[in-house]
């Protein structure tokens, strides 16, 4: 079943229509169990929106942690603009909507039996399963950089203890030292994230360690909001930041955390007083276990519903999904989750099915009173979720405009986290 495409399901349904009629009645009586794995921007939103609009359905959210720290806005914590508590959210709001929140690790999915197994061995049955596990890392692509190495050179790309660790490394770096940032190759969570982070680290250095330097060893030749970030680096952090793109020697081959050295494919050795290494990424492990990933390591979906094209009765939202032109972002996950919730409600209750619509906006804070943004509307085609009508902040905007965008970003954060967790 795992390798079967949705087109394949359709053929089976047509071929066996008469014989399936009786079992389908039995199934209908039992239908109504929605299980969501992962309580971030995608999973939290799906759970809330299914339960809110179809209270008769039994909705269970399985989340490993008792609270969720958003990766979006975690750079502002590193930059000293937010405290950690303000970017951490509990699940009481979702429980208040009637979602059964289970604080556990999902370790297995049996797509044929439609069950999820938890680490303690207990089994949760579902009629529809939503996978929203976010990202996992490909640890083997940079020699010498594994999970243990990330305790020395934090990735801080799953918000939580790693984020706190990175801030400690930034704030405690030797005076006049060198900080090395290694962004990940595409595709990855939050495309502007590493470069916003550079701004926030530079902001901290400018405040308390002004002779410090930041070197970005980037596997890529270009990156999100490039002109806007470079404008900010020049305007606010002149002389502090050096970006080395992939075709100019930025590709990292190996890392030695004991020696605190980072060696590029060209053989150049960089000595770091502190570093942030963000590995290449793939869908969260449970997606692979469930059979929902393809050879890319990510999850193909139906652009009209976020249903997996790999496994029947499974949906994938957020960073794990192959969402066409949509970037992997909290805003995208929240948007995809609403389409997914509607599709699931329709499948289980016969409620209205409106055409899928998607939206994303990514704000990046580049200085205390300066933020930029990029975004678009998206619509499903038969091939992918396609970008239509994109927009981006312009280089050279007025300080007033940038301050407005900065304030807008804070308002967005309060609204979307309320929408997800409230």
């Amino acid at each position, binding site marked *: 079943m795992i390798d079967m495409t949705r087109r394949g399901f359709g053929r089976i349904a047509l071929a066996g229509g008469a014989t399936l009629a009786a079992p389908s009645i039995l199934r209908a009586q039992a239908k109504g169990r929605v299980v969501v794995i992962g309580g971030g921007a995608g999973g939290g939103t799906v759970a809330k*929106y299914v339960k809110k*609009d179809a209270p008769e359905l039994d909705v269970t959210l399985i989340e490993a942690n008792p609270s969720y720290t958003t990766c979006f806005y975690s750079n502002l914590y590193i930059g000293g603009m937010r405290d950690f508590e303000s970017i951490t959210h509990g699940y009481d709001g979702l429980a208040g909507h009637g979602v059964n929140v289970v604080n556990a690790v999902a370790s297995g999915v049996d797509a044929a039996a439609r069950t999820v197994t938890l680490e303690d061995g207990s089994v949760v049955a579902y009629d529809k399963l939503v996978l929203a596990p976010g990202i996992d890392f490909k640890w083997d692509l940079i020699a010498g950089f594994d999970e243990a190495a990330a305790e020395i050179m934090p990735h801080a790309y799953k918000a939580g203890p790693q984020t706190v660790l990175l801030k400690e490394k930034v704030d405690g770096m030797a005076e006049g030292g060198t900080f090395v940032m290694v962004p990940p190759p595409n595709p990855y969570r939050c495309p502007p994230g590493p470069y916003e982070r550079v701004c926030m680290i530079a902001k901290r250095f400018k405040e308390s360690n002004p002779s410090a330097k930041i070197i970005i060893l980037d596997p890529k030749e270009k990156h999100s909001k490039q002109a806007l970030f470079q404008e900010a680096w020049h305007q606010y952090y002149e002389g502090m930041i050096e970006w080395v793109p992939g075709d100019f020697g930025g590709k990292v081959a190996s890392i030695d955390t004991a020696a605190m050295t980072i060696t590029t494919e060209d053989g150049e050795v960089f000595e770091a007083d502190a570093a942030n290494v963000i590995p290449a990424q793939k869908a969260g492990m449970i997606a692979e276990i469930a059979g929902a990933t393809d050879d890319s390591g990510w999850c193909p979906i139906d652009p009209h519903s976020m249903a997996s094209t790999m496994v029947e009765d499974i949906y994938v939202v957020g960073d794990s999904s192959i969402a066409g032109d949509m970037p992997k972002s909290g*805003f995208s996950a*929240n*948007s995809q989750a*609403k389409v997914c919730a*509607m599709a699931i409600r*329709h499948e289980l*209750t*016969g*409620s*209205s*099915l*409106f*055409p899928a*619509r998607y*939206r994303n*906006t990514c704000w990046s804070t580049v200085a205390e009173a300066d933020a930029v*943004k990029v*975004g*678009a*509307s998206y619509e499903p085609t038969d091939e992918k979720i396609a970008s*239509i*009508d*994109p*927009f*981006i*902040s312009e280089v050279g905007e007025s300080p007033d405009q940038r301050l407005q965008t900065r*304030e*807008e*970003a*804070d*308002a*967005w954060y*309060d*609204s*979307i986290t*309320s*929408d997800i967790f409230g």
Partner: protein
Amino acid sequence: MRKYAGWLIGSGLACSFAGEAGAGDLAYGEYLAGECVACHRAGAEGGIPPINSLPAPYFVEALKEYKEGERDHALMRTVARSLGDTEMEALAAYFEQLEN
């Protein structure tokens, strides 16, 4: 018939939609509002204005002004350009009946 009527598959809400023709369909508006509430929040102060309880005619007019470039906000102009009259009316009807 409104252009999205063909998209309605569930029978229950399709009936209620038919009964509200011309007034802005609340179920459709609630679905469309999912895009808005990622940014707009009841009671919010500063940054992004709340839009709950706005009079429907004003709501539609504001969206049209964004769409036609008479209001200057890149994000909202993108939002408005993705909406037809039916969508604007549905959103306006939905938000008008919410308390701020």
